[in-house]
């Protein structure tokens, strides 16, 4: 597989590339430090929890977009992958007292495998069957977990989280740092996919699947890679969640609300590039945090639903696409 080569058409000199990367890293590091400083400045743990939720949605939206945006398959089952992450944590905590960091890779592998399996079953059919199947899988898994007493069954399970973590201070701060790192990682991964042959192949498949196959693109295999990667990232997003809320039950972990948010964010932000899900997640995430505090949390879903319907109907390329369109018109 040649998926690691850089695919941009112009090839600038190696030193220029490194300089640019270094500059990017520097700016990123400064921004992260500033972000932590700002959150510390509020002086409450709550700020970290709110920020955690927003960043978690960046991770979920980016994960969804790897399959939905690049390959054009709608995954309704985000909650299933998310819950795999949650319950891997619960199980590993109860069985082995495994700390969060050690649980992460296990979740990623499990969720990735479930993604692979779902894809294998349905990706040869029309896209809509994949969508329905993801929905179905969420319910099947929820039923399994509900009946699995070891992880708490329908009653749910409690997780005791440490008071603080060395180097990070409070545990909320630690959780936020982990989630931020994973979100940044996922965005970099998405950006990398976009620029390498995996992304180019997926784009070709989305445009003209038959012509792509005739050009030697192994469509099913690329789609399976995308499904597995997307699933694994969603699983990662769910892994710290039990520590975050300290109590998790199937209804919360498998909630359809997670699914609708995850779909709405990339579609509102724009599915064509890595930037779209980030913009969408920031926007919706911040609006929701604000509405939850000021009005009510049930209104949240209404806002998500209305925005989703409005955007897909009126601005199918999302905010990023809309702004690009404006710029192009000006130019």
């Amino acid at each position, binding site marked *: 597989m*040649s998926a690691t*080569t*850089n*695919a*941009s*058409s112009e*090839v600038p000199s190696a030193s220029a590339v490194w300089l640019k990367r270094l500059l990017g890293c520097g700016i990123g590091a400064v921004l992260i430090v500033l972000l932590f400083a700002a959150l510390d400045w509020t002086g409450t743990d709550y700020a970290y929890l709110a920020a955690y939720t927003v960043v978690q949605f960046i991770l979920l939206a980016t994960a969804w977009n790897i399959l939905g945006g690049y390959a054009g398959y709608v995954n309704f089952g985000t909650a299933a992958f998310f819950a795999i992450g949650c319950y891997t944590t619960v199980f590993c905590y109860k069985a082995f007292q495994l700390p969060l960091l050690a649980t992460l890779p296990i979740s990623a592998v499990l969720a990735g495998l479930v993604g692979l399996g779902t894809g294998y079953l349905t990706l040869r059919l029309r896209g809509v069957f994949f969508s329905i199947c993801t929905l179905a899988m969420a319910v099947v898994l929820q039923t399994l977990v509900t009946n699995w007493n070891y992880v708490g069954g329908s009653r749910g399970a409690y997780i005791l989280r440490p008071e603080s973590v060395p180097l990070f201070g409070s545990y909320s701060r630690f959780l936020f740092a982990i989630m931020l790192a994973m979100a940044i990682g996922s965005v970099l991964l998405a950006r990398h996919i976009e620029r390498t*042959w995996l992304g*180019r*192949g997926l*784009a*070709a498949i*989305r*445009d*003209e699947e*038959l*012509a*792509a*196959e*005739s*050009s*030697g*693109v*192994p*469509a099913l295999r690329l789609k399976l890679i995308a499904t597995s990667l997307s699933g694994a990232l969603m699983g990662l997003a769910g892994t710290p969640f039990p520590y975050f809320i300290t109590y998790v039950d199937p209804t919360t972990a498998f909630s359809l609300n997670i699914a609708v948010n995850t779909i709405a964010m990339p579609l509102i932000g724009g599915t064509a590039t890595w930037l779209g899900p980030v913009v969408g997640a920031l926007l919706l995430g911040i609006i929701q945090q604000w509405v939850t505090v000021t009005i009510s949390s049930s209104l949240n879903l209404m806002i998500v639903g209305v925005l989703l319907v409005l955007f897909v109907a009126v601005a199918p390329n999302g905010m990023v696409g809309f702004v690009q369109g404006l710029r192009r018109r000006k130019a």
Partner: protein
Amino acid sequence: MTTAPLLKMTGVTKRFGGFTALDTVDLELYPNERLGLIGPNGSGKSTLVNCLTGVYRLDGGSVVFNGSDISSFDIHSRTRIGIARSFQIPRPFKGLTVVQNIEVPLAFAVGMTHQREIADAAHAILKEVGLNAKADAMPRVLSQVELRKLELGRALAARPKLLVADESMAGLSDSEVDEILEVLFRLNGEGISIILIEHIMRAVNRFSQRVAVLVAGAKIADGPPKEVMAHPEVERAYLGQ
């Protein structure tokens, strides 16, 4: 001929419901040969191409390419072992530029990994089909003849041993037909075997060393163009009785 055929299709049969689109068709192609495949509309030419390139699974018969039976191969595997096609209705990757379109098969079918190598090869192919001026354009701004050239270029980028040109000239003017023919002749000169599927008889007669005629899913004639055109059954198929 003493050389082994590059392509040997034997008893190829394809049905759609009660409709038999191909009925035990045999077709051979020798290395570096130029074959014209003709027949009235609906006679099964496109179905034959789809059976050859793996879009359809056969209901009977076999396809042997370069000595190995590829009847059960996927589309992309067939492309990788050297069968490339252009589409009757151009199907460019709309979201990619012209040169990026060409790069897809270079990376996936040929398996090139170095970006600079791929870019160079892509530009060379664009030059060959006469599209180098449009390398960075998006497909939607191309004219009809340019889209056909892009189709050919993309097929070519798979570095095929066999190129199937499916109605690459339909709807083009006489001079444009000649442009495409020239490209095809040049490719054949480089050692690529070509199956030309075409309704424009002038082009078929000029290009083909051998012509095969399909009528109602069966092959009724196969031979040098002059002989085939004079064949009473061919005349009947085209003109009626």
